[in-house]
């Protein structure tokens, strides 16, 4: 069988890749993709802990949490992409550094 920490190592790797992308990508759609990767890493972690520690007792809290993260990810993608398209329409750019309307 697969030990629990294999899943945790996998999700740590995905999370770190996503973190790198979220900080360094220039394209804001790329930043959104990286954040989705990080959310997926968190989901793997939650489901792995659920399966190994909680599922034998019939505890469903982790699964409800995963559903909430799915909803949050969908909401984040929808609102984020709407904002990117809106910013592109007014400024003709998707580069995160150029979106400085709020700069004082």
């Amino acid at each position: 069988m697969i030990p629990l920490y294999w899943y945790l190592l996998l999700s740590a790797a995905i999370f770190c890749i996503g973190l790198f992308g979220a900080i360094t990508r220039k394209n804001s759609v790329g930043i959104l993709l990286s954040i989705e990767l990080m959310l997926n890493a968190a989901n793997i972690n939650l489901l792995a802990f659920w399966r190994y520690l909680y599922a034998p007792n019939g505890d469903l809290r982790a699964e409800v949490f995963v559903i909430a993260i799915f909803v949050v990810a969908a909401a984040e993608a929808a609102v984020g992409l709407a904002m990117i398209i809106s910013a592109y329409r007014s400024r003709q750019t998707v580069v995160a550094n150029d979106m400085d309307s709020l700069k004082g």
Partner: protein
Amino acid sequence: MTGIQILFIVNALVIIFSAVMTVTARHMIHAALWFVLALLGVAVVYAMLEAGFFAVVQVLIYVGAIAILIIFAVMLTRRALEDQEKPFNRASLVTLLIVGIVFVGLILSIRFWPLLQSTTVPLSPDQLTVGTLGLALTDPQQFALPFEVTSILLLAAMIGAIYIAHERKEKGK
């Protein structure tokens, strides 16, 4: 090394490779397609964790909806970033260092946690049904409130997305 372990390692390598390609790809459309591959790999991980419902939901929501949404956004913002330009900003080396430190720290903390060496116990078939989860989500004694809160969040996000992306006609012109 059993067959399921080999499957896990191959799947993990596919996920990590496609995640790296998602983050480093120059063309955003390539990044979006690699992202779809990474999400499918994550769905396989869910299936290996005996969370079949979440594997299906992953394919439906992420691969079916979010990936299509992202590809549409990429196509709508097409010529924004020149393709020969570097995809990273100037902080990339520092960030690589910090992320490497974070990753090593995570590995060390995971490796020396005795609880995590535990292996799984097989579940009985009645613990794996979607029906249990569905009943728990609608039971006021259990998770009905979080379920309703997430649905309100989704509704608010939908209205917000429509409002933000809506093209306003300038009045008086």
